[in-house]
């Protein structure tokens, strides 16, 4: 009876299923190390309203702190000669602890791993330091380090407003402020149990070791954590633009996106992967967006599109494991383009322009998607892009750590081996599948758009977007004189391309990430 009641509560809470202590193994006897990953099916979605950032604070207090019988300093002293590498990553729906240790030290290090997970110290000092750094990040670092990351976080804030997906993993200023050490202890006990743990191990380990690890990890609480259902992205009505105004920004950093009801779980993902790669493969010069915005028009450093969350795109050339998500969205990343103030200073011939390049770049990107929806891609482009992806996907798993990570993510999506299965799906894909997926999943009428830009640009850009004014491309004479006619003709069309802009709001940098959250 108790079980039935529990099930009812579970369903009422709209929770997602958890699976007790799954194991993913990747034996590599020739390796000189062992990689252990502990993936908990819980992430920032379980942060309580008003304490956004609690999961992040909890996990970092565990991983950067001590254990029941060793202080953090004693652990550091012990592992220093071993060069053990361990860390934890928190995402919306999963948390992954990763330990990498040389085989010479596996036995000596293992008790530290075990005790960190089973009996973390939760020392006051460790917690205070974590909390202070976390506050520092949400208050200052995110707003003042990379306008591109800032723009990306602001886009998620719009897409998921009012849901448990809205806030950054690191939380919000007021959320972090309200977290106490007791919350952290309680959160760990409640949401990190043997029932939502998946164990992964790769490298050169013995059967006895894995048996011990499994046995020890069953010492975690035996309770079923009630993980809230992940929030879904909001459907905007028209194009909703948020311009974040900053002092002394050299460029306009643009992100735009809309909800996408598709993940790696679906076989259609392979079809959309081809479409997306053709439009804007991450950090590759082959995409249409890159070709038209950067290569042909010299407007910025690169332009890409995404059909799932991509962590740290500025530094990662290939996607990383450990960030699987159920709530998905499509996005475009237009790297910073010039603002009017800068262009005027650099080129006298542009001294009368009112806005920089953001409006034109946005129009061009949207038009490319519309072209794909209207016309599909060609047979030739389909074949070439598929060929690329079938080779390129294998590069995601070059190291044992990555290979293990992708296998574990596969389980999240109900797959066994995502890389292999995608390859098989790509192999049997047809052009019709790709063009059908484009029409089914992509649209440009309703999107959220975030632009981090200089305060001198914000006002004129707002006006231009609101009024759907033509945005002729303002080239310097140096570039303009050599442009072929077809580019200039296309520019004309782009400059007058109608966007379905409904609202444009300017937000000061200090007021971002602050909207009231509705109850989850």
């Amino acid at each position, binding site marked *: 009876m108790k079980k039935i009641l529990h099930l009812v509560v579970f369903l009422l809470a709209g929770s997602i299923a958890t699976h007790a202590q799954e194991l993913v193994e990747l034996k590599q006897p020739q390796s*000189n*190390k062992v990689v252990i990953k502990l993936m908990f099916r819980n992430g920032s979605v379980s942060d309580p309203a008003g304490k956004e950032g609690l999961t992040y604070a909890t996990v*970092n207090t565990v*991983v950067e702190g001590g254990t029941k019988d060793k202080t*953090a*300093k004693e652990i550091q*002293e012990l592992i220093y*000669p*071993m*060069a053990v*590498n*361990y*860390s934890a990553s928190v995402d919306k729906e999963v948390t992954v602890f990763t330990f990498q240790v040389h085989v010479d*030290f596996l036995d000596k290090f293992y008790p530290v791993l075990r005790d960190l997970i089973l009996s973390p110290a939760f020392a006051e*000092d460790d917690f205070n330091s974590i909390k*202070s*750094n976390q506050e*520092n*990040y949400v208050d*200052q*670092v995110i707003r*003042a*380090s*990379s*306008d*591109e990351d800032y723009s990306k976080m602001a886009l998620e804030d719009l897409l998921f407003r009012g849901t448990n997906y809205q806030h950054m993993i690191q939380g919000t200023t007021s959320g972090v402020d309200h977290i106490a050490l007791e919350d952290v202890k309680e959160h760990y006990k409640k949401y990190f149990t043997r029932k939502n743990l998946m164990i992964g191990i790769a490298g050169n380990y013995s059967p006895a070791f894995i048996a011990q690890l499994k046995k020890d990890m069953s010492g975690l609480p035996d309770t079923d954590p009630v993980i809230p259902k992940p929030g879904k992205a909001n459907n905007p009505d028209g194009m909703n633009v948020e311009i974040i105004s900053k002092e002394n*920004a*050299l*460029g306009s950093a643009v992100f735009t996106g809309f909800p996408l009801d598709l993940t790696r779980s679906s076989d259609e993902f392979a079809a959309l992967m081809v479409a997306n790669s053709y439009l804007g493969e991450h*950090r590759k*010069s*082959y995409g249409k967006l890159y070709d038209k915005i*950067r290569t042909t*028009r*010299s*407007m*910025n*450093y*690169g332009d890409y599109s995404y059909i799932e969350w991509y962590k740290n795109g500025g530094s990662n*050339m290939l996607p990383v494991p450990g960030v699987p998500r159920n709530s998905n969205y499509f996005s475009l990343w237009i*790297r*910073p*383009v010039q603002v009017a103030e800068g262009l005027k200073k650099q080129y006298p011939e542009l001294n009368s322009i009112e806005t920089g390049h953001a409006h034109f770049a946005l129009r061009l990107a949207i038009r490319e998607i519309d072209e794909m929806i209207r016309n599909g891609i060609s047979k030739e482009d389909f074949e*070439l892009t598929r*060929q*690329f*992806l*079938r*080779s*390129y996907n294998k*590069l995601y798993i*070059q*190291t044992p*750590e990555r290979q293990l990570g992708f296998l574990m993510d596969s389980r999240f999506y109900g797959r066994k081996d995502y890389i292999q299965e995608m390859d098989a799906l790509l192999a049997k894909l047809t052009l019709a599948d790709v063009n059908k997926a484009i029409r089914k999943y992509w649209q440009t009428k309703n999107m959220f758009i975030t632009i981090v830009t200089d305060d001198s640009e914000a006002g004129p850009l707002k006006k231009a977007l609101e009024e759907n004014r033509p945005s002729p491309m303002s080239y310097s004479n*140096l*570039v303009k*004189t*050599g*442009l072929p006619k077809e580019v200039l003709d296309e520019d004309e069309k782009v400059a007058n391309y109608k966007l379905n802009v409904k609202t444009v709001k300017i937000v000061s*940098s200090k007021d971002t990430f602050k909207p009231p959250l509705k109850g989850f």
Partner: protein
Amino acid sequence: MRPRSLVFLVVLFSFLQEAAGQTATKKRILPFDIQQKKMTNGLNVVTVPFNSPGLAAFFIVVRAGSREEVEEGKTGFAHFFEHMMFRGTEKYPKELYGQVLKSIGASANANTFFDRTIYHMTGNATMLEKMFEIEGDRFQHLKYSEHDFKTEAGAVKGEYTKNSASPFQQLFEKILNTAFDKHTYKHTTMGFFKDVVDMPNQYDYSLLFFDRFYRPEYTTIVVVGDVKQEEVNSYADKYFGSWKRGTYAPVIETEPEQTGTRFAHVENPAFPPYISLNYKSPAFSDKDKDLPALDILTTLLFDQSGDLYQRLVVKEQKARSVSGGPFFARDPLLVNVAASVVKAEDMQYVKDEINKALENAKTIPLDPQKLADTKSNIKYSFAMQLDSPDQIANSLALYIWLTGNPESLNNYYSLYDKVTAEDIMAAAKKYFNNNSLTIATIGPGEVGNVK
């Protein structure tokens, strides 16, 4: 090593640390055979077979970077030129080059730093010949229009623009400009913004740049993975055999000795306060013990179990992080010690505490166990990085650009074994000297206010 806190994610010089550690064993640190063949035109071809079924990393290291930008107004040019290398040839115009690259399905890109430019492709080993063919073609027959040249300059400006949002990047530019007077390390690899804006006007100079540096004597090919040396060498002969030597050797001014502390500052009240002490460091050598001595010292000083970290970060919580290490560079550059500070008013205190630790290092010998542990840390950190062709090729590339010889990797690591506590004190005395110091700060005021 534990994960670093959030603020560390963007810490200046962070990527240097991957090179800045490492090791010492009696045997060679790299557990793989480095097979080299010097071709008659001067091109060095390096093969490292590695167990990675179906996968190969193909790297081309050109020993020309921002260090070679000796002419006034040409800063950032090596990096700009790296961009131009993707603009095609007669045989493979840029669209076709892009299609071929795409068909290879490789992860391919390039990057430029002070002393070198690296072009890399990692992908299907069965496509190795195609990789050689397209690279051999563009390295010898690059051809772009003046319009393409001017257009690409906009992308470089875009790169500067996106980087410039980071206060660390702004500070780094100022540190170099302040610490150096004559040597080309005065400017970053991106170059000064005024030169970046002027790039479209430098078409003729770009032809000269290609003619000077894209020559076999400046270049090494490294192939790691599921390959055989005979196969690699035969492709090198076929696709790079007719490449002609050049004649140019740049004259890079020696930096005069610095004679007093200098200051660099970025005013930013909306960013965590930050202090960085930058001392002139030794040039890389695989024979001299100064660099490994500094590396051991900084690894130990800033480790999280160390006294300095424990006091400033853990107990007093005046700093969020302390970190540091020497640059690995062909000429003397900088050894850096930095801290992210909690409150701006504590910057002087944090600086004084770091200074005390550096002063102590000059006179108090390291505990022998700590010294041994640090060498072990460095050795195992390196050993654990060697699990893909890409990582191994990257490790080799570092030593190739530093000395031209990949064996320098093994030679350099063997030096760590020889470093004694006395060597470390001597290095601390020699390099942590206020006359060669540049104090750099990010803070709320117009000036740093740190002495």
